[in-house]
């Protein structure tokens, strides 16, 4: 009797682990292991003997933190971070601003074609980044662009969208075009979850539609805004597809335009997987620090507000 109870107790104790096992195994195999390997790679380097030709000319040796020192002192990496910062300063406010605006418009009373509007705004998100980059690239190239053709017809000056300052706007435009729909859906879903009584109460108090949007809707969807901001920061830090597709069209996008392009360049064109691993680890750490730092600030503010209520 007591034996079976003990057995049952043991099974119950083991059960959670059994349920966790698949996830844990997958996590270890496809997450922890590759990260561990990347860190291991980043601590090594290739050393060449003699002319470096033939078998045995290359060996992998311990490098300590030398790859990290190189990555952190690399002016190219810093420059690429600067470029992405400038790009992010355009993309994130514009994209989230538009997403919020569209969500509020769709959520407003007496809006017709709500389903259609939602679909049309969301659709660009379904276009892969590479395709979007090509599509917009064609529109940016003066000699094949209908935009430039029209400007030319009306005798207006046509800007070179693939160089200098306008390049950032052109690049940001692709991200805004592609990302607004997704963020809008997140915010819109959160708007639909607001109980109708609150609106009724607000209307009884004499609130206009605009006031409801500003005073009730936006504060109520703040968590969704935090979430979309969080996603956008991560996506911006990892921008790769659009600049890579636009690069062959212009002299103005170097192969190391964004930090991710730098990693790709080092690993697959320069053949230096060790330096690339170190840079990737640095980017991952910075991304983690930024995202969790932001989440912490956002959460503590939420808590303060709740305490204040």
């Amino acid at each position: 009797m007591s034996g079976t109870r003990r057995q049952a107790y043991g099974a119950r104790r083991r059960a959670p682990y059994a349920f966790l096992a698949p996830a844990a195994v997958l996590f270890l195999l496809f997450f922890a292991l590759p990260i561990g390997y990347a860190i291991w790679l980043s601590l090594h380097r290739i050393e060449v003997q003699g002319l470096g030709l033939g078998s045995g000319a290359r060996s992998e040796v311990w490098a300590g933190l030398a790859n990290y020192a190189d990555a952190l002192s690399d002016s190219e990496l810093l420059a690429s971070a600067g470029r992405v910062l400038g790009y992010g300063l355009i993309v994130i406010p514009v994209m989230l601003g538009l997403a919020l605006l569209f969500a509020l418009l769709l959520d407003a009373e007496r809006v017709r074609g709500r389903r259609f509007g939602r679909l049309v705004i969301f659709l660009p998100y379904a276009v892969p980044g590479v395709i979007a980059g090509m599509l917009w690239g064609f529109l940016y190239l003066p000699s094949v662009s209908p935009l430039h053709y029209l400007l030319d017809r009306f005798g207006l000056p046509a800007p070179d969208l693939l160089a200098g300052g306008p390049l950032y706007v052109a690049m940001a435009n692709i991200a805004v075009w592609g990302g607004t729909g997704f963020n809008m859906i997140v915010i819109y879903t959160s708007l639909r979850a607001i109980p109708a009584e609150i609106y009724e109460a607000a209307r009884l108090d004499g609130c206009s539609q605009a006031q409801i949007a500003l005073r009730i809707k936006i504060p109520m969807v703040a968590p969704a805004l935090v979430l979309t901001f969080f996603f956008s920061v991560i996506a911006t830090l990892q921008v790769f597809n659009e600049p890579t597709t636009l690069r062959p069209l212009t002299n103005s996008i170097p192969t190391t335009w964004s930090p991710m392009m730098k990693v790709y360049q080092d690993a697959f064109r320069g053949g230096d997987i060790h330096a690339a691993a170190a840079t990737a680890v640095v980017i991952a750490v910075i991304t983690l620090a930024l995202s969790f730092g932001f989440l912490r600030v956002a959460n503590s503010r939420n808590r303060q507000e709740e305490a204040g209520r």
Partner: protein
Amino acid sequence: MKLHRTLVTCLATTLSAAALAGCGGSDDGDSSGSGPVDLSYWAWAPGMEAVVDLWNEANPEIQVTVREQAAGDDLVTRTITAAQAGEAPDLVQAEYQAIPTLVSNDVLADISGELGDEVAEAFAPGVWQQVTLGGEAVYAVPQDSGPMMFYYRQDLFEEFGLEVPTTWDEFADTARALREADPNRYLTTFSANDAGLFAGLAQEAGAQWWTTEGDTWRVAIDDEATRRVADFWGGLVAEDVISNEPMYTPAWNQALNDGSQIAWVSAVWAPGTLTTAAPDTEGLWAMAPLPQWNAGDNATGSWGGSTTAVTNDSEHRAAAVEFATWLNTDPEALAALVTEGGVYPAATAAQTGDALAEPPAYFANQPDFYALAAEIATGTAPAAWGPNVNVAYATFNDAFGQAAESRGDFAAALTTMQQATVEDMESHGFQVAR
């Protein structure tokens, strides 16, 4: 490991020799039970499968399978990665400039032992030197080559009263004359998105970017010859007599197609590119030798061209070498490569052979296209590649892209290219002469 490899090679040699001797028309000679040898071949040349089919039909004992994995530099990366995992294919298509990189990563086998002595004779010395890296070893069999030439719109040259330039000075004058005659047109462009073009132009001027002395590398990317080329093109870009727009963009296609650009410094494979880039101007182009630095010379550089190499992972090295030799020296194979893939064979005999009697369709107006090409090819300057061409090329893209965009200092961009290349080599432990 090494012993094991040698053993396998010997075994493979013996087996395939036995198979060759034994088969002689019937299959029953093969009683060892090992069956036919299967070789995998990573290549990107168009129509390669059709050529390989010819081999497979004639050689039931050695069956080759073509896999189109990737092209050019991407394939190099992929092959190196596969070799690290011990999974490299038996044969791989590799561009000349990638050979030192592949050898340095211990991917390519030294096939001098398996290769017949007569094979070297089939190629021009400047071509052969690129597969031996100047030593005793042989790392690949040359397949196609890309001697550089000058392509121009015959009709527009006539319309604007321009002479075909024979020297670079004349080339500059032609560019200026055209700008004066029609400010909406450029002679051509300086593009920073393909370092191969610049490397070829530097070879014509006599550059030897990587050379060795004992165990030391010497990098001479910013030598006098290359500097001359860089300054020349930089000057034309700064003067705005040639364009600075990159090649291979929709805008570039349009410029070639509508005559905004009326010439292209390119290589023997240009007809293929022009067919797709400028379809409306078929029959209006003509080809001439590359302009010279010294009047009366017959020098040219190489842009593109590739080889067939055997990897260290191959368990059938002798069979693979046999196939590579057939593919690149046998008249039937070469003729098929020309007709199926439109490649310009590296084997000298084939350059004047029957397969190249007709000009490419796009150049039907120039019946002696290939005869002229073969003549130009005799002046191909030797190329000297090093173990980090990829790094030098990537730096070229960025540094010269910036210089072209700002119409700025090409010499400074060249210095950047030299420094980045040397620094990369030194950081990996190569001995580089300063």
